[in-house]
């Protein structure tokens, strides 16, 4: 290399280095490995590989459906009034009079919280435990719309029904407009004069 000519030195160095830059060779037998991979691909195409995931996806979908079903079944259903839903305790009812043991009501039959059992003796009152008023079950949940109500809403949305006008109960009609005259306050001259 000519030390007096750095340009040529650099050119020569670059040519030499660039000629070797991609000089690596693959390991022996790479063609056979590639062909083996291709044959394996033909035997087990890629489109079949993802089919392995089909059962897993179906299982996952079933689990999701089951979870949704369980979740929806846990949703609070419309709670009937506590009087209808509450039943008397299974134990013997309290009686207000002795000798009324034959008046024990059938515990399997629904009864109100306060049931009057017809008995030959004095009136027997079966008192059931009334839930506290702050219990959530005391407050009923709005009942779902009936079929007719849903049809009416659908018809209203589709324009099949005219929009309902607000009904004004009798006696609440708008009063005729009343004119209020300007209030004038006259000076109290008469009083001063008197």
């Amino acid at each position: 290399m000519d030390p007096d000519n750095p340009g040529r030195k650099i050119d020569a160095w670059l040519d030499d280095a660039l000629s070797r830059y991609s000089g690596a060779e693959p390991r022996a037998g790479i063609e056979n490995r590639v062909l083996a991979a291709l044959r394996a691909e033909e035997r087990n195409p890629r489109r079949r590989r993802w089919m392995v995931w089909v059962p897993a996806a179906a299982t996952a979908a079933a689990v999701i459906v089951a979870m949704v079903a369980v979740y929806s079944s846990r949703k609070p259903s419309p709670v009937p009034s506590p009087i209808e839903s509450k039943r008397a305790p299974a134990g013997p009812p309290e009686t207000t009079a002795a000798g009324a043991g034959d008046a024990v009501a059938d515990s399997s039959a629904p009864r109100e919280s306060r049931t009057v059992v017809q008995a030959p003796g004095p009136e027997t009152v079966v008192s059931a435990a009334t839930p506290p008023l702050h219990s959530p079950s005391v407050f009923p949940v709005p009942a779902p719309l009936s079929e007719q109500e849903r049809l009416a809403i659908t018809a209203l949305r589709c324009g099949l029904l005219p929009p309902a006008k607000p009904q004004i109960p009798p006696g609440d009609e708008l009063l005729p407009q009343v004119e209020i005259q300007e209030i004038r306050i006259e000076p109290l001259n008469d009083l001063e004069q008197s």
Partner: protein
Amino acid sequence: MRTPATDVESVVREHTRFVFKVAYSILRNVEDAEDVVQETFLRVHRSGELPNVREVRPWLARIAWRVALDRVNPRQEIALGPLMEAGFQAHAKETGAEQLLVQQEQVALLHRLIVTLPEELRHALVLSTVEEMNSVEIGKVLGIPEASVRTRLFRARQMLKEKLAAWMEGGHGS
């Protein structure tokens, strides 16, 4: 008439080394380049477009180039502190293992310089180092005209020379 499978096989046997060179020029790693070769021919096989391809070499090079670029590790660096000085003295008349070592260091130094080039220049220059790849084929791989390839190669070479000259003026390579 040959079946498509036979076509793929003949293409593999004929162009594997070329595809490897393209991949290696980008990845600088034999194992990774071989993986790219395999992935390239698998894509060729899956596409089924081989019978319709007129120029197989640029087509293969383009596939391999894209596959290799997807595998480039941006954090991959080569420690070239002491290597740079040894690499630039590669023209001494070494022989045997010492010469081989110096050549490796020379290539490592060049790689360190190439990495600093702008991407458009770097891709053209790297592909030009693959043997038997001319400007036309490089242009087909990069999707640019041949004239642009020549311009980029010239600019890349100029930048490399400037970097080497600046490095030599800094007291290295003497």
